């Protein structure tokens, strides 16, 4: 431990035990424990306690306090647990009395035994119960701890805490039981103990018997607790003894399936999946039978998660997988049946035909119907993305079902059956189902489908994009699904343009997009712009797309949205126009023969946004567009590169948003790389330095850098009050310095440049004076200053960040001590 911390500790311990002194907030005690955890993990705890007797004293005093403060008591329990994790320290705390004459007794039993906080008034505070459990969790690391737990009767208390009123305490109790069980089974018991448990350690037997009793209980909470403990056990412990445990307990678990209703079905599903994923699963054939039985016993809603879990398993009998897939498909099969006008094409595989139970669920209530459908759609969406998804994948019926659901929701379906009518009534305008179905439909774009079906998909998407009833969120999802289907659509036979169906759809889509860009709802405009950006990024070079887009008013509207009242929309419009412009699609009236006229106007407009927009998002977007233009070698940027860079840097350097300034430095770095060549590694912390540039080139480059005022921007940014800006600047200047200075070589000969004005400016900036510009700079002077600067040192200091100070244990201890006596109104205040 740091000597300074050692020096501060006694005072802090004294404060903690003094009931008159207010304790700093919980976060301080948490951070203090974090620090002790680091310290105890790094070295011997015993030595720590011996060198800092105030810590043991603290534990004694808290115990002896008449009315201990719950927070401090909880802290002490956890602290004692951290120390006792090491066996020698555990022994020490078991037997060593306090140095103070008034304090006698065995510390650990006093803390965790029945004579401790367990019986006190403070036990009513959840934080104390939680601290007690966490302390034991830390402590239970060695055989001695097991004996201690048995002797002090802690296990019984943990059993009772499983049903605690606090979720946190109950959960911690369950996890501690698993931890103790695993600890008990470690060592001599490890191997293949008998399922009967006659050779199991007493502690383990006790826990298993408790779990058995709980599984037999008629009270659902107790069954749930037992199932949760077992789920954690099979999830975390993969030793052979778990096999014996399952052999012993699986009959009891199977008995639960015979009850009606099945108790704690959610936890039961978790347990069965946990066992199936563990090594136990592969060796127990009876498990698959239990899983199959469970699938058929549970209600459709309860069975869904189990079915998905089964389908995610790597090794599992095909019949079970088929059954599970059938469960997931049932709701959609019902929908298909309900939507059918006449006997249609083949539907789902056998076993998924829309059984009566699912129909009953649909008919029982609106929330049940909506819940089941959303769950099925989400599960199938997840499944579609998995490599182990069932094969053959019923793409066509799934597509039909998704389209049918969307039509039910939209009110455009005309069902003939009773169930169809019911679904129509229940799903009409249901945003929740619409969202889930659109997500699912988007995922289905990964597969193919018959053209007639794809046409239906585009038609229903267009319905949603057009409908005034579509909520902003639904609209966004409709745009996303449309994008996925568009980008996944097949190319024309020539592979260089869009297929005729897609072209036809585009003809219908663009007017809808245009309408959405004029929507009074900003979310709709923004989603439209995001869609446009993405589709242009992928199809900007496709003739059919270009033609359709230029024939629409979409590019002009996008330009108008640069002045949108909503900053998010302006930012999206900036990105979209930047993308359009990159493909020469921004200027509609002009042909490709005169793009520069429009391009110049867009550059000016974006520069105007960069200089004047009151919000950061559009300005940041502009910087991203400009950086991308520079990287891509945009023709119009390349035409007068220096002018472009100079104007952008000038605007960025004065920006109030640190991200814009940082992005300005990013753009400057791209510029430098284009002039000097890329560094060997783009990692700013890489040790390898880039190769030096030839002197003739270098001189020209430096002149250019002076002309665009990159030096002034970078040097000023070096002392920016926002650290990321200073860091970026430091990296940039280091790159430049390395390029200009051959590794280990001498500096160029010649007259000493005049560095006085530069150094003076640097000093002013360092002192926080930002007012004076540098004026005309000589490249040699700048380079001389750069060479004289300890940029590596500065980078090291910046990398530390002010958190280096804020997070240090000394700082924490000082803060806690300093708070004494001044807590009052301050602590009650908030944001």
């Amino acid at each position, binding site marked *: 431990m740091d000597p300074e911390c050692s020096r501060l500790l006694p005072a802090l311990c004294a404060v903690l035990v003094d009931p008159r002194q207010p304790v*700093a*907030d919980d*976060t*301080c005690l*948490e951070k203090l424990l974090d620090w002790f955890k680091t310290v105890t993990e790094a070295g011997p705890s015993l030595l720590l306690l011996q060198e800092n007797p105030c810590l043991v004293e603290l534990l004694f005093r808290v115990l002896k306090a008449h009315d201990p403060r719950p927070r401090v008591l909880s802290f002490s329990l956890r602290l004692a647990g951290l120390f006792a994790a090491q066996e020698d320290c555990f022994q020490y705390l078991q037997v060593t009395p306090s140095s103070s004459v008034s304090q006698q007794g065995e510390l650990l039993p006093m803390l965790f035994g029945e004579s401790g906080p367990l019986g006190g008034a403070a036990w009513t*505070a*959840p*934080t104390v119960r939680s601290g007690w459990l966490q302390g034991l969790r830390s402590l239970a690391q060695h055989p001695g701890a097991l004996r201690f737990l048995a002797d002090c009767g802690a296990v019984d208390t943990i059993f009772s805490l499983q049903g605690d*009123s*606090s*979720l*946190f*305490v109950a959960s911690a109790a369950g996890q501690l039981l698993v931890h103790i069980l695993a600890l008990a089974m470690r060592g001599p018991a490890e191997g293949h103990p008998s399922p009967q448990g006659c050779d199991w350690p007493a502690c383990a037997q006790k826990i298993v018997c408790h779990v058995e009793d709980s599984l037999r209980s008629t009270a659902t909470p107790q069954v749930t607790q037992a199932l949760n403990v077992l789920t954690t056990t099979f999830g975390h412990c993969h030793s052979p003894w778990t096999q014996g445990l399952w052999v012993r307990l699986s009959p009891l678990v199977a008995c639960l399936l015979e009850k009606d209703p099945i108790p704690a079905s*959610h936890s039961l599903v978790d347990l069965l999946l946990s066992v199936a994923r563990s090594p136990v699963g592969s060796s127990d054939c009876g498990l698959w039978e239990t899983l199959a039985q469970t699938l058929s016993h549970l209600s459709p809603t309860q069975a869904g998660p189990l079915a998905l879990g089964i389908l995610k398993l790597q090794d599992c009998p095909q019949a079970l997988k088929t059954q599970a897939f059938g469960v997931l498909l049932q709701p959609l099969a019902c929908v298909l049946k309900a939507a059918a006008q006449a006997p249609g094409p083949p539907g789902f595989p056998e076993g998924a035909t829309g059984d009566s139970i699912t129909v009953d669920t649909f008919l029982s209530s*609106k*929330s049940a119907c909506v*819940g089941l459908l*959303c769950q099925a759609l*989400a599960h199938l969406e997840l499944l579609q993305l998995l490599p182990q998804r069932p094969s053959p994948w019923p793409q066509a019926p799934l597509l039909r079902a998704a389209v049918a659901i969307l039509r039910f929701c939209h009110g455009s379906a005309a069902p003939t059956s009773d169930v169809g009518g019911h679904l129509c009534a229940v799903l009409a305008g249901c*945003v*929740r189902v619409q*969202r889930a179905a659109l997500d699912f439909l988007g995922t289905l774009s990964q597969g193919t489908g018959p053209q007639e079906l794809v046409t239906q998909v585009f038609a229903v998407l267009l319905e949603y994009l057009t409908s005034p009833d579509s909520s902003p*969120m639904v609209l*966004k999802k409709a745009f996303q699904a449309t994008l996925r289907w568009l980008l996944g659509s097949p190319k024309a036979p020539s592979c260089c343009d869009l297929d005729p169906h897609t072209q036809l759809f585009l003809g219908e889509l663009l007017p809808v997009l245009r309408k959405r860009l004029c929507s009074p709802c900003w979310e709709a405009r*923004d989603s439209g712009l995001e869609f446009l950006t993405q589709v242009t990024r992928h199809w900007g070079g496709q003739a059919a797309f270009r033609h359709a887009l230029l024939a629409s008013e979409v590019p002009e509207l996008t330009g108008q949205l640069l002045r949108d009242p909503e900053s*998010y929309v302006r930012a999206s419009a900036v990105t979209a126009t930047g993308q359009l412009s990159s493909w020469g699609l921004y200027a509609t009236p002009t042909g490709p023969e005169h793009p520069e006229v429009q391009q110049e106007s867009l550059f000016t407009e974006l520069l105007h946004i960069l200089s004047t927009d*009151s*919000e*950061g*998002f559009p300005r*940041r977007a502009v910087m991203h567009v400009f950086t991308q233009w520079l990287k891509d070698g945009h023709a119009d940027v390349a035409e007068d590169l220096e002018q472009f860079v100079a104007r952008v840097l000038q605007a960025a350097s004065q920006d*109030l948003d*640190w991200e814009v300034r940082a992005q300005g430095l990013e753009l400057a770095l791209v510029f430098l790389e284009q002039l000097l060549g890329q560094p060997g590694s783009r990692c700013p912390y890489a040790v390898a330095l880039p190769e030096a540039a030839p002197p003739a080139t270098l001189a020209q480059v430096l002149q250019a850098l002076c002309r665009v005022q990159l030096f002034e921007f970078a040097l000023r940014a070096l002392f920016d*009050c*926002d*650290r*990321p800006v200073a860091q970026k600047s430091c990296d940039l200047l280091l790159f430049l310095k390395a390029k200009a200075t051959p590794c280990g070589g001498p500096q160029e000969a010649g007259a000493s440049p005049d560095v006085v004005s530069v150094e003076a400016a640097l000093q002013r900036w360092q002192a*926080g*004076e*930002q*007012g004076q510009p540098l004026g005309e700079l000589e490249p040699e002077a700048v380079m001389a200053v750069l060479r004289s600067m300890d940029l590596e040192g500065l980078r090291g*200091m910046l990398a530390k*960040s*002010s*958190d280096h100070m804020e*997070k240090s244990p000394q*700082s*924490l201890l*000082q*803060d806690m001590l300093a*708070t004494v006596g*001044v807590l*009052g*109104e*301050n*602590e*009650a*205040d*908030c*944001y």
Partner: protein
Amino acid sequence: MPEIRVTPLGAGQDVGRSCILVSIGGKNVMLDCGMHMGFSDDRRFPDFSYITRNGRLTDFLDCVIISHFHLDHCGALPYFSEMVGYDGPIYMTQPTQAICPILLEDYRKIAVDKKGEANFFTSQMIKDCMKKVVAVHLHQTVQVDDELEIKAYYAGHVLGAAMFQIKVGSESVVYTGDYNMTPDRHLGAAWIDKCRPNLLITESTYATTIRDSKRCRERDFLKKVHETVERGGKVLIPVFALGRAQELCILLETFWERMDLKAPIYFSTGLTEKANHYYKLFIPWTNQKIRKTFVQRNMFEFKHIKAFDRAFADSPGPMVVFATPGMLHAGQSLQIFRKWAGSERNMVIMPGYCVQGTVGHKILSGQRKLEMEGRQVVITPTLPPPALSHACCDTAAGVMQVEYMSFSAHADARASCSCGQAEPENVLLVHGEAKKMSFLKQKIEQNSVGKPRRGRACEGGFSRACADRARHLAEALSTPPRGQLLYAANGETVTLSTSPSIPVGISLGLLKREMAQGMWAGHAGWGGAAAGQVAPQTAPAPAPAPASQGYSRMPRSPGSCRHPIMKDSNFRLVSSEQALKELGLAEHQLRFTCRVHLHDTRKEQETALRVYSHLKSVLKDHCVQHLPDGSVTVESILIQAAAHSEDPSTKVLLVSWTYQDEELGSYLTSLLKKGLPQAS
């Protein structure tokens, strides 16, 4: 029995990371989704794993409601919606929706770029999250779905802050978020409709405090600033971009105008415009005075407050600067602090809370040596704290003065238990400290017996100013909740059973008849409501829990019979005749029978006559008849005498009666069992 369950995942008995799960009428709602500024790891967010255990988040939660834009109430939202995976609706007011992203961006900047955290939400995630938001207007009833509805009310506190009423059927919960019952210079006081929610979840930041007069605090603040400026010093006020900064700006602007002061006041770069933009945009959310004068003069167009340029910090002479961030942990405020810290003429005023680890926290706790970016800044107070100062140190030569003045806008004890017009059945205190909540509860319980004596509040262990406030507290708590006052630690679930209140219609005629018979008064507590609440026909009246059969029996009085009928999901209270008619049913007669054996050697007819005479003499108020067939009747009770089949000296009396006369029937049987009087 229906119940409401509430589990705080954060801010149960602390401040920060507000996140409260409410389960009402089968719907699950999350109230606020905040972060804790004191942590920089996973602990900064509520532990959502306790919700994800219940399956998919979006399936489990019906909606998320955000009360206001402070990060301890919305800071975890992008993480929750974009990283944990909640895809459902998020409700907040329009100003909150507009301002939230700005504060979330600030937070992201600190977390990602200053602390180098990679696994954090991005700007795009913030935007995607905000697109899931459904903006609500004040007093607008929003149907989340067919059963769940929410309604927002003005909460004061900060621009756009709202209290929410959540209602499912007849059950309702009101969540206050942070609120302020006292109007300030730019916001009004919290206000809610007169309502009787089953539960009020209220903040209790100042649960044991009756705060000093705001005027006093303002006077102190102005005095300090003025004195510093007069002696040529500079005043730094670290603030967050939006919130109490605007309050202080209006305060200083007005003071400067009145005193005709010339020293410049600056506001952190860019934020003046931004703040003005939002305050102008949402002018209806400000207080009445600002709204009224807005046309003539916009209070947010300051004459004396100008945008700050970094170069100004070095200008000689006095000035006042509002700079961000508010905890002096980075950026411009920290830079200015470093620059000015060395002069005794200067002053820093901290108007809000600072978390441990920040420079703000250090100077507030009186630390003298601060190491910042490799440099040591020394603040050495040599004088004791002045009487007026709320906290911390004042100084002598060579160092800056430090002042703490709380301008946070929270409800104090006077408001915490009543929240204006809401008359809750139960109250759950959140967003405060356990000890103070317990103290408050104790005081309320005492108050319901007798008001505490002056100074008794000190017994709770609150040394600071509690004694002076006890009297106010007692006054404040004159209307405690009708049910329980509760508080729960994070992770603890509070469960409340609710008595469902079901609207029932009743015809005017029946109501008048019942009233005339005085029956309602007898059932005042029935169904949880008083007789006076019953209204004719269309107005709802309380009824007992519905009988699934369609109608159920109610307490009956002689000559009166009413039944609730459920038709088309509506309950109506009608007479039994009407009920039978509407239901198309004939009345069933249910009779109880009993045999009484009497030792009587006479003939059956004589025995019957003896019975008649006996009853006639005993039951003077009832109509006793001897029928020609030898039977005796009393009301609906029929008595027939018969010979015993085996014992001729014994007669069997067959007694039967309808269930309406059950009491009389029982009485008669017991009377007859005692035997008949000997004939004279």
